[in-house]
């Protein structure tokens, strides 16, 4: 057994024991705290445990942040400030294997830092009956301020819960929200299938199902949100020079059904995304010009998911969640080197250079992967969470690559202990270990690369 595995195990066990020894006997008492405050509810009315939504929270969100009883004070009457903040100061230890450096073809690198997960400023609520909004600003430590989400939603059109329209930058209704994952490490709070690109860095398609997208969402649901559908037209991760083909928006769709029994409830769903990515541009001074993308090549993602929630609505015991996804990227999206293409006709010079890719992969890239995730709540203040993700390549676009090049796996195990989940705030102690491995991705030595991350922090929001 390698050193890092032993370390990981020791870490997890020490951590868990500390958790229980220290905090089992403390008894301090989870919507966005801004919603909790507004409705005089604890966080746990809408969250199984923050930030994961329960059925009540899903129904509240689907109804446009409205309780459905004509009592949703609009923003104009600021009873409580409509702002929330969330961040997690933490200690983060990371080890990476087989990293090529200038000094060696395969180095082991480890880092240990005090850190922040980022800082989310959130504001959301009701502007007027059936008009709601969300703003999430995430200034990261030394990076730019990122407008993570900014949308407005018109709910219950024609008095029907089946017609709601959202416009702006928003998270796609993917089966497992990455904004509501318990995990806080990069493997812990993301799912491989949503963010995978076959062919690795050689793939010019940077579409991510997990990214918040600019677009228009049409969604509908039954009154209790047990049946839900979503149709989403969006930019498909294209920004800046990639805003090439607004003419052909990316389409995401999802349909899901929930079923209730006494001690268990299930949700089963289907999802899919169909889009195009340009492979040639006109340029100016060598830089691709937005809007000029052409030779669009297709990609698709098709998946299914199944969620079991154990326990009752009042005392949830946890969940067992599965998803499986199949993805295809047109071979021309992979292995492109962008070279000037003078063959593209220019109606009247000067047009600038038109760029076209060299011949890409000779066949479609096909991969499939999934997630098995388990949440367990031994009591109402503690959550143990774990998810295991995998990606297998079925067919590489570039036939010179090994079949299993960039197959991936990740495993996360963590625990949260909630000190506070009240009407006003949420404070949780958080510990997590995550493991990420990618196959043969050290291109020099053709070794697997492995990253281990240990994370201990305090997650808080108010």
């Amino acid at each position, binding site marked *: 057994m390698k050193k890092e595995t032993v370390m990981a195990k020791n870490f997890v066990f020490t951590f868990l024991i500390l958790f229980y020894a220290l905090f089992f006997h403390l008894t301090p008492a989870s919507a966005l705290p801004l919603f909790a405050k507004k409705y005089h509810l604890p966080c746990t009315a809408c969250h199984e445990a923050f930030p994961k939504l329960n059925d009540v929270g899903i129904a509240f969100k689907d109804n446009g942040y409205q309780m459905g009883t004509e009592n949703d004070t609009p923003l104009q009457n600021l009873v409580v400030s409509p702002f929330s903040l969330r961040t997690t100061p933490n200690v983060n230890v990371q080890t990476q294997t087989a990293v090529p450096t200038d000094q060696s073809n395969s180095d082991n690198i480890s880092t240990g830092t005090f850190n922040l997960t980022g800082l989310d400023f959130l504001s959301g609520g009701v502007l007027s009956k059936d008009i709601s909004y969300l703003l999430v600003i995430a200034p990261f430590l030394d990076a730019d301020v990122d407008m993570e989400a900014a949308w407005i939603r018109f709910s219950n059109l024609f008095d029907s819960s089946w017609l709601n329209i959202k416009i702006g930058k928003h998270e796609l209704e993917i089966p497992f929200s990455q904004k509501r994952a318990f995990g806080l490490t990069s493997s812990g709070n993301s799912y491989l299938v949503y963010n995978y690109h076959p062919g690795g860095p050689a793939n010019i398609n940077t579409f991510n199902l997990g990214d918040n997208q600019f677009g228009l969402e049409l969604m509908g649901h039954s009154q209790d949100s047990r049946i839900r559908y979503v149709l989403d037209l969006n930019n498909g991760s294209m920004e800046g020079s990639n805003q090439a083909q607004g003419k052909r928006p990316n389409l995401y769709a999802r349909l899901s059904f929930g079923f209730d029994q006494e001690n268990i409830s299930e949700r089963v769903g289907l999802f899919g995304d169909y889009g195009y990515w340009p492979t040639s541009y006109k340029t100016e001074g060598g830089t691709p010009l937005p809007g000029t993308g052409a030779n669009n090549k297709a990609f698709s993602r098709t998946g299914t998911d199944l969620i079991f929630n154990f326990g009752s*609505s009042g005392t949830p015991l946890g969940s067992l969640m599965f998803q499986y996804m199949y993805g295809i990227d047109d071979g021309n999206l992979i292995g492109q080197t962008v070279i000037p293409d003078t063959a593209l006709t220019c109606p009247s010079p000067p047009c600038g250079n038109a760029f076209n890719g060299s011949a890409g992969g000779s066949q479609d890239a096909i991969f499939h992967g999934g997630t098995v995730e388990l949440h367990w709540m031994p009591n109402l203040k503690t959550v143990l969470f774990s998810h295991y993700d995998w990606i297998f390549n079925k067919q590489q676009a570039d036939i010179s690559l090994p079949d299993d090049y960039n197959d991936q796996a990740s495993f996360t195990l963590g625990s949260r202990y909630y000190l506070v989940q009240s009407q006003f705030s949420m404070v949780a102690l958080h510990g997590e270990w995550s493991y990420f491995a990618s196959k043969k991705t050290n291109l020099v030595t053709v070794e697997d690369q492995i990253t281990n991350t240990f994370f201990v922090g305090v997650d808080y929001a108010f």
Partner: protein
Amino acid sequence: MPFKKLFLSGFRGLIILGLFFLILPANRSLASDGGHSLNLTRGKGVYERYCAGCHGVKGDGRGIYAEGLNPKPRDFTKGVFKWTGGPAGSMPSDLDLMMTISEGVNGTSMPAWRGIRESDRRYVVDYIKTFSPRFKNETPPRATFIYPPPPGTPDEIDKGKTVYEKNGCMACHGPKGRADGRSAGTLTDDWGDAILPANFSKGVFKTGKEEWKIYRSIANGLGGTPMPSFSDQLKPAEIWELVYYIQSLRD
């Protein structure tokens, strides 16, 4: 670590967690009295997660988040309820409670709890009934019969105005239904709090838009409030005329 092993170690972790799962539900289903106490335990779980913040752990309406709410959350220990199938003051049936809990009370902080699983909503009904001995000693009467509605013509609205003026509605609800009648400012409810008559100009009814529920509020009155029962005094047709009339008072 070879790649295969990585997959295996991931699965091993999940299996260990999975085993905990299997042990846990077994522990929690030790009830031996035909499941009744188990159901109360479930109801308590639902109550404490969703309701206690307002209605209080003891059901006395003094939850830790109840401060500043108007109207105040119901004190269940008195066993008095506003929305009952029978006349004001009688016990609500499980169905009555289930309806209030599922649909909420419009215009108040009492949310619609449709998101809670139906079985769990039934258990929480059982549970809130434990707060008052009235539920042991009394049974809910037959629900008031709701006569089928007439078509709701302008003529009926006019007649409704007369019925409204003749039967003292104005004293509380005011001449135009703006909650500004003579005695409007003087009313208190059985829980000792000041209460305003309904303001019809807003077009929001606590029980929702369904007309049969407005009919029911007039026919039965509202338990624990000054809103009297009119079923002895008025004919079903007149109650319907009132329903149409007060609906027409919306701004």
